[in-house]
């Protein structure tokens, strides 16, 4: 059943300062509202918590992509469409562009934002695995000031985040210099477009000769949060990706992820597909 609008307030201050002041006056009372591609769905089905929402849509300070010497900063309100189109992201952070391209259809990509995808904190979100692989850092802001959190520490439990009641996500910082890493992104769903993931896999490896010098592995839809697979990474770092390494990576992966049965898939299937995607990635690293 659709929600009853008078149970809600939606306000749109003119600038970021206005948003932060409003939130600071009653911390925890105002929830941020960006492109609406998640919250309006909840609203229409009557599941959006009643209360006050502050619109961030159109705020200049949270928009745009900036490429600096050491990193690229992506404003939290940047849409999937803008991510897909950005030349630096396309050449240096292709997994993020691929994730953006596989999130919903064009109409969703025109409204959905990267900050919203993070803050909605779905374990099945498609862009977080790419952000984890790229060692993203979040810049959070409140009326009290700004702070940064490494993205792999941001999600602390199902729908729980290291985000204080008066804070919003301002920008996502991606360190540059990974363009030469071998990388892959694979979303497994029921259909090719508009699917919610059964398993979402992202990985990048710095390969020198026959050795994996460094590696990042991240998965969505296989744990209460989108997860960076530290055990599997450790099992592979500094090793040749041979059959023995494959086997230990597969065992380590089982420690990293905890898939469940739900309406989209089963724990067994997810475990098997996650491991297969990892092995496939490793198999293609060396000739």
């Amino acid at each position, binding site marked *: 059943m659709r929600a009853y609008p008078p149970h809600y307030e939606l306000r749109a201050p003119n600038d970021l300062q206005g948003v932060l002041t409003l939130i600071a006056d009653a911390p925890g009372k105002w929830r941020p509202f960006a492109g609406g591609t998640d919250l309006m769905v909840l609203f229409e089905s009557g599941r959006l918590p009643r209360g006050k929402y502050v619109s961030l849509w159109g705020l200049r300070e949270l928009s745009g992509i900036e490429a600096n010497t050491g990193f690229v900063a992506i404003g939290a309100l940047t849409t999937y469409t803008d991510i897909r189109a950005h030349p630096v992201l396309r050449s240096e952070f292709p997994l993020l562009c691929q994730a953006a391209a596989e999130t919903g259809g064009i109409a969703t990509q025109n409204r959905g934002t990267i900050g919203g995808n993070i803050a909605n904190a779905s374990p099945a979100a498609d862009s977080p695995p790419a952000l984890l692989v790229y060692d993203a850092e979040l810049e959070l802001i409140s009326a009290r000031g700004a702070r940064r959190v490494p993205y792999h520490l941001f999600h602390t439990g199902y729908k729980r985040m290291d985000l204080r009641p008066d804070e919003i996500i301002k920008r996502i910082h991606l360190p540059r210099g990974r363009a030469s890493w071998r990388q892959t992104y694979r979303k497994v769903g029921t259909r090719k*477009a508009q699917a919610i993931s059964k398993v979402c896999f992202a990985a990048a490896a710095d390969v020198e000769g026959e050795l994996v010098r460094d590696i990042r592995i991240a998965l969505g839809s296989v744990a209460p949060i989108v997860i960076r697979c530290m055990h599997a990474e450790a099992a592979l770092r500094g090793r040749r990706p041979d059959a023995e390494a494959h086997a230990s990576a597969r065992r380590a992966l089982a420690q990293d992820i905890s898939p469940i049965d739900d309406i989209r898939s089963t724990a067994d299937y997810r475990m098997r597909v996650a491991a297969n995607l990892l092995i496939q990635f490793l198999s293609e690293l060396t000739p």
Partner: protein
Amino acid sequence: MPEASVAIRCRVNGDDVELQGHPMTRLLDALRRELHLTGTKEGCGEGECGACAIMIDGRLVNSCLVPLLHADGAAITTIEGVAQGDRLHAVQEAFIAYGAAQCGICTPGMVLAAVDLLERTPHPTDADIRAGLAGNLCRCTGYVRIFEAVLAACGRRPAPSTARTLP
């Protein structure tokens, strides 16, 4: 207390309009109920099917997921604004010629998605067309005729015989 109503101004199909309503009102409802632009359809009501697609500031969006407040200052095109007066858009001509509509609920959104695709990508590949229409669900035709119509609209199938005008 939550404010009961806001007044926003926007441009719809070239006309300046003022819309009043709760700020969370779905733009879809404002267009249909206040402006009686009933070409925009409600399908799923949760951003999956594309039947309620419109253009806002040149970008395709699902109007069921846009709160009225976000339409303030926007330039909106609905299906009613796709034809130029009596002249149908090439996509509309092609949909007629290729029988790309059956029950018609998905058609306004399909047409807008195709118009948007051809504006961004005048010479789309087959994959471009499929990706461009991936957010629009049809439960009747099975997509083949829709796909053929888009091919025709971009000149890759014979054009509809003659330009048609609205009665």
